[in-house]
């Protein structure tokens, strides 16, 4: 084991997979400028800058994937995916099915999101749930360097389109990553802390917030299990249901907005398939249903904090009959 940053883990995964398989290539706006190590090693045909046009970047990846290449495209910030939805959703996600299985689309789309840079909602928008709602795609969003590396390598080897979301705030976070070949299978959650009284479920940077909350809960005698989903589609339903079967209490935490988010899916899953085990309301703690502001204190307040997790958790041990709404910073339920 050695400690490297998330950004370095991503760089290693790309280099190793490009070394292993000559069909892997990477392109995007500024990719060849920024990843000069890859350019130097693999040459200009496999590491390419593109014109500033997300639609054709994604579309080119889809067409290339269908015909033998294994492209990775860097679309920079998640909101820019809005210019590539047709290519990702209507083409990559549907054309295998519509062609009766004639084509496969082994491709990876990289995108950043999340608070931490003060750049506002046109750069910071957690859109992962959209892709979990669309057919034919896979979605991952890791929380630590080892998973960044292992999941990116798995994504590149996957024969399906994989959306690889990178929480911006994690880029420089160091973490232990095995020296040897390291793959993390898509579709498998990680139980990052064992516990028996309640389950905190999250992904990306709020996993760390959940760990902090779990730590504090432990101090007051509550044993919280923490699950890092890692893969948002396919979701590791077994891991979720097993944990809730044990604890009977769930708080789902993410920065993305609540309505129809990943937390809604997890809560709905639990409410259907772990109902008999549930001992308290299923609580979601999410970012507000607002665009992300640039102003530093507002941006910080946007993200669920450990305090809120702890107090949401504590309420689950109150009398069920009196359980009331526990939402992030007590925002009103309705947008209006």
């Amino acid at each position: 084991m050695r400690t490297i940053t998330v950004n370095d883990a991503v760089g290693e995964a790309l280099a190793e997979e490009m070394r292993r398989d000559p069909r892997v290539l990477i392109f995007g706006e500024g990719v060849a400028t920024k990843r000069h190590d890859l350019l130097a090693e693999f040459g200009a045909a496999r590491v390419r800058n593109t014109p500033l046009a997300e639609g054709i970047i994604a579309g080119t990846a889809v067409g290339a994937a269908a015909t033998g290449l294994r492209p990775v495209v860097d679309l920079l910030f998640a909101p820019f995916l809005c210019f590539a939805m047709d290519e990702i959703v209507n083409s990559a996600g549907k054309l295998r099915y519509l062609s009766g299985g004639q084509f496969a689309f082994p491709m990876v789309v990289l995108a950043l999101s999340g608070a931490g840079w003060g750049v506002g909602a046109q750069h910071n928008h957690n859109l992962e749930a959209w892709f979990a709602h669309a057919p034919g795609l896979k979605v991952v969003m890791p929380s630590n360097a080892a998973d960044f590396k292992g999941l990116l390598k798995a994504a590149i080897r996957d024969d399906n389109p994989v959306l690889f979301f990178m929480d911006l705030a994690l880029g420089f976070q160091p973490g232990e990553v095995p020296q040897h070949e390291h793959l993390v299978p898509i579709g498998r959650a990680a139980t990052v802390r064992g516990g028996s009284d309640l389950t905190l479920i999250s992904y990306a940077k709020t996993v760390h917030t959940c760990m902090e909350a779990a730590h504090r809960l432990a101090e007051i005698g509550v044993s919280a299990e923490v699950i890092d989903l890692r893969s948002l589609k396919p979701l590791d339903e077994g891991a979720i249901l097993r944990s809730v079967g044990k604890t009977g209490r769930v708080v789902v935490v993410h920065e993305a907005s609540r309505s129809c988010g990943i937390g809604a899916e997890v809560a709905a899953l639990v409410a259907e398939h772990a109902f008999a085990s549930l001992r308290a309301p299923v609580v979601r703690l999410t970012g507000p249903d607002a665009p992300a502001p640039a102003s530093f204190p507002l941006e910080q307040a946007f993200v669920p904090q450990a305090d809120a997790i702890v107090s949401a958790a504590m309420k689950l041990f109150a009398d069920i009959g009196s359980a009331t709404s526990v939402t992030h910073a007590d925002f009103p339920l309705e947008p209006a």
Partner: protein
Amino acid sequence: MTQQPDRASPLAMLETMMLIRAYEETIVAMSEAGTGPGSCTSVGQEASAVGVVHALGAHDRILTNHRSAGHLLARGADPGRMLAEVLGRRDGYCKGKSGHLHISAKALGVILTSTIVGGELSLATGVALSQKMLAEDDGIVVCFFGDGAACEGVFHESLNLATVWELPILYVCENNQWQAFVHRRETMPVDEVRHWAAAHAIDSRSVDGNDVEAVHAAAREAVGRIRETGKPMFLETLTYRLRGHFEPDDQSYVDPAELAAWQARDPIALLQRRLLARDELTAAQLRTIERNVRARLDDATLFAEASPFPDISELITDIYA
């Protein structure tokens, strides 16, 4: 890559055009009889499809759109499997999942048909990148699309990337003067899309799209140039959508004079008259072709109608690889 000489012959092209027409008429008849769904027919545009596709080699690849029957049949697709697909049957090229709008046939090199207008343009660059980086031969990519698709921004993104990356693509814009229920003149300031293409420093030409020999000559030249230079080219076939946008369509919004003028230039009748006049076709030969085509379509219809619907379990297959 050499052409089968007979594929390039006017007679071979006539037969393919007549096959396409008969196929589309079969679909229209089924739709009118209520035994088949509506569809976007290529009636009137057969010369464009055949002139281009008959100029391709076996390793070249095709992307096409919602008005694809001509391209597929010219490429040698089996009308029986196509009809089966239109009817949503198990023996269709896409197991019935596509229906008529996105038929692709990988084995024939008909890759990634998209009915998102502009979808084929966004995908073509990637297919060409594979040809360039992986192919052992000098295969090129042909991307068929309409004048409407040229209004989508991705048209420009595609042409620009093909230029900048030097991708071997023949862009074929079938300018049939209509974009669903809107006339082309309402949507662009010039009559020909080639002006837009030329701005991307792409060699861009237009040709009478109802004259299959002219289309074929232009396509052969373009294909040869692309193989030589590795760079994209743009060819516009000026033609007309003789039937409506989607069956049934009463075309009440169409100027009857414009329609009549183009009907008088029906590409099939035009070629027949010309070949008869040049003594390259006899009335007897023509009748033989007609009979052959009719027979193929009758067989195709029988095949398609006999093909069962897919099993319900197919609803959730072919989603992930």
